[in-house]
């Protein structure tokens, strides 16, 4: 009830001063637009690194201890890891540069067993791969590759043929090719029949399983965080977002403070008429809430609209839950900024204000 009364004053002021409040809403729109775009880019960049890993829905990964937590440097003998976990999938990995004469791309080749859970769902073409055949992730289709394309490799004389496409499944900001173990062995003879790079594990109790001293079992989140460049990239974007929140608070706070100063005499008169500090404080906070809500909703709409028109090469991905959380935080931050105004309202002396 009390809030509704305070909102009456707040809302009517906004309604009658469209230009003034439109400018403040405009500032919040721009801040929230930048914030949502940054969050989308952060999410997209993270996804570029771990999209394939997320699809595994795995709990852990086993690699050799001296591999510095990177798959390609790890070498495991399959005998050392046979049936240790509830569910496990062998992985061979190598990086290549592929070309179909028209397009050239960096990619990783994953050598998998038949029916491995590491293989994402095939959405186009054939899922089974014979020797020198690969299934590519959808990002390669978007890059200009097609089923039947013959791929030349920069570091091998072998030629691979694309037989199908899976869902988009990027890994370390590169596309993926899924091949049989035999194909990978031909590309890198060091990855022979009994040698693999890693074992991906689906087992909630993986920490209780004893493995060979030369192997280490990493929780999948820890593995992702240690992907080359992943954490610094994430930290950079997160710092930008945090500073943007702080700057937003200051900018919105300053705007509202100036507005409050302009209304000193009005607040004085209202106080003289018997309106309490609490009422006026609720009015200021209510006004901030309305302005911040309108600004962030428009900012959100603009961001989603921008997302539609951005080229696929821009790694942007909107996580709606994160965006809603950022929206709520931005509104809270704006309310915190308006606390300066609330304090100044408390200090208004009705005696001085009415002359």
């Amino acid at each position, binding site marked *: 009830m009390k809030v*509704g*009364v305070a909102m009456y*004053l707040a809302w009517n002021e906004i309604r009658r001063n469209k230009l003034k409040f439109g400018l403040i809403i405009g500032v919040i729109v721009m801040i929230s637009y930048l914030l949502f775009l940054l969050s989308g880019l952060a999410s997209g960049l993270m996804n570029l690194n771990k999209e394939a890993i997320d699809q595994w829905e795995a709990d852990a990964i086993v690699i050799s201890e001296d591999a510095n937590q990177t798959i390609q440097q790890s070498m495991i003998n399959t005998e050392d890891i046979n049936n240790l976990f509830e569910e496990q999938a062998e992985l061979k990995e190598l990086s290549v540069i592929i070309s179909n004469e028209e397009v050239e791309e960096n990619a990783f080749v994953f050598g998998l067993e038949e029916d491995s859970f590491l293989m994402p769902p095939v959405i186009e073409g054939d899922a089974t791969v014979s020797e020198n055949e690969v299934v590519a992730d959808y990002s390669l289709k978007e890059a200009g590759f097609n089923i039947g394309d013959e791929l030349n490799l920069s570091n091998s004389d072998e030629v691979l043929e694309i037989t199908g496409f899976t869902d988009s499944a990027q890994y370390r900001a590169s596309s993926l090719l899924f091949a049989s173990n035999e194909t990978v062995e031909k590309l890198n003879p060091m990855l022979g029949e009994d040698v693999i790079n890693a074992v991906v594990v689906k087992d909630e109790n993986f920490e209780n399983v004893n493995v060979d001293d030369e192997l280490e079992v990493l929780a999948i989140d820890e593995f992702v965080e240690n992907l080359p460049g992943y954490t610094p990239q994430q930290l950079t974007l997160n710092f930008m977002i945090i500073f943007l929140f702080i700057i937003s608070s200051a900018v919105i706070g300053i705007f509202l403070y100036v507005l409050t100063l302009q209304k000193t005499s009005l607040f004085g008169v209202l106080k003289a*008429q*018997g*309106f309490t500090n609490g009422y006026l404080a609720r009015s200021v906070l209510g006004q901030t809430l309305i302005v911040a809500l309108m600004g962030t909703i428009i900012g959100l709409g603009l961001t989603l609209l921008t997302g539609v028109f951005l080229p696929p090469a821009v790694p942007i991905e909107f996580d709606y839950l994160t965006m809603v959380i950022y929206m709520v935080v931005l509104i809270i931050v704006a309310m915190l900024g308006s606390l300066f105004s609330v304090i100044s309202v408390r200090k208004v002396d009705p005696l001085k204000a009415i002359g």
Partner: protein
Amino acid sequence: MLKFKDVKKTFKDGNQSIEAVKKTSVEFDKGSCIAVIGPSGSGKSTFLTMAGALQTPTEGEVIVNGQKITGMNTKSLAKLRMSEIGFILQASNLVPFLSVQQQFKLLKKSKKDVMTDEELDELLNHLSLTEVKNQLPSEISGGQKQRVAIAKALYTNPSIILADEPTASLDTENAMKVMEILKEQTIERDKTCIIVTHDERLTEYCDAVYKMTDGVLEKIK
């Protein structure tokens, strides 16, 4: 009823102590319109703001309808002002972004015991404000603004109306009209109305006239 009992108000100005209102005892009854005249700086505004619970006396007691305002906290003083006191100020002081009608809606949302809609319509009609009730303060004349301020002061059914130079921004014709309305409403609605002014022409509308000279209040009529 408004009562001043041995009220004194002093202000500090550096090391000096200035007595804005010297020891005063006075009582104003309901249904009477009182003028307080005096030159600028004589202490009449200080007197009015103490009567309006905007400041408390240094010594003595101000009693509004049996309630001593001395010792009340800010919130209680605000509540007292909302329920018992109606202010009419020099420059009308309406909320600039609310229409005439909305000025009353705002008060209605904050206080339950206000006039009924029918009573308000009647009052606005009587004050010739019906036609401007959907307009903003910036869209109406000075006289109309001051009449809205009078209507606002009456709307919350206060027992005391305090007017500080209510005709200062008006021409003679409008000033006299405002005074007629103020006098008439005070009697009709059984209020105590205190008008602070240095325009002695207004005293002819009042039941009693007090003069404030250097902080001393003296009844002259």
